[in-house]
């Protein structure tokens, strides 16, 4: 019994340590992440941030997920002949040592179907997967702007 609880304790410790370890070894760094508060009941929201690649090789963002949304896609708004067009970006590449900025009117996270209504001041957590198998956890605050 004692052995079992000791084993359980070790597992628990490892589990709590894991994200810390991941964060330490991460070469992608997320800053200024925020989610735009939307009108109530809207099934889509926009998320923005800047991502810096601190490694010596290019890394692509292959996936972003969050417990707060049903699904997330990376999109880009492009202006063409005065028309605003939104397209999915299948893989967002961040060149070595560079920063890619996701901002209104440009690249953004398209956040589908919030699990519960989000208001300015709320915080949302995200997990980002890189093409080099790293995972980065980050949080974003909901803002009206």
């Amino acid at each position, binding site marked *: 019994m004692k052995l079992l609880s000791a084993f359980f304790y070790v597992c628990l410790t490892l589990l709590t340590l894991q994200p810390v370890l991941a964060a330490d070894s991460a070469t992608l760094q997320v800053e200024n992440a925020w989610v735009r508060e939307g*009108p109530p009941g809207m099934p889509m929201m926009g998320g923005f941030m800047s991502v810096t690649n601190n490694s010596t090789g290019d890394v692509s963002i292959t996936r972003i997920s969050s417990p707060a949304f049903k699904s997330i896609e990376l999109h880009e708004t492009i202006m063409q002949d005065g028309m605003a067009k939104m397209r999915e970006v299948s893989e967002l590449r961040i060149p070595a040592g560079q920063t890619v900025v996701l901002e209104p009117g440009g690249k953004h996270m*398209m956040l589908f179907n919030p699990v519960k209504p989000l208001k300015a001041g709320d915080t949302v957590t995200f997990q980002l997967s890189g093409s080099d198998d790293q995972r980065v956890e980050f949080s974003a605050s909901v803002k009206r702007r």
Partner: protein
Amino acid sequence: MNEKRKRPKGQLFALVASAVIALLLGYFLGNYFEYGSPDKPPKLDSATLLPQAADLPDFELMDQNGQVFNNQNLQGKWHFLFFGYTHCPDVCPTTLLRLTEVYNRTAAEHDLQANTDVIFVSVDPGRDTPQHLKKYVEYFAKYFIGLTGKKEQIDKLSKALGIAYSIHPPEAEDEPDNYLVDHSAAILLINPQGQFQAVFLGEQDPQKIADDFIKIAKFVE
């Protein structure tokens, strides 16, 4: 200036150029007298003023309360008009939030501000019902009006204002309500006679839009 250019060509160019200048001059002089004002059109940073305000075709749409909204409802107030769709998470909220900023920055001109509304016209009537639009526009400000309606009526208005849009087919068959819409990003200004007066294209700074709006309103009134 270009030595290779032969003389006859240069003369032809001069002839065409002076013809174009004469035409432009006549055009502007014509407008000058039509306005009946000795004022020169204001210098604008972010807007293009129509040489002559253009009448809109007769249209009939529905507002967020399910009430009929037509040309009559444009009388007596300035209206900023923007075409979009509520399932748009980027350009539409960005533009509408910017228009609340523009409105706030006209505060010094009390009468003008009191006589200004913002209209969001949906180009996606399939998803944008009046009830849906109500929640959407009222989130931004109380002076926002949301319009939707029959496609022919929306097209009548959008075409007259040079607004283009295109609805994409759904991305997945099992999600018929998940599709994108490309649409013009222009902000249009309608004068209190319900005529197309000016267009703002690509300006990010709400202060510049507000400054130009005030200049236009003072020039026209």
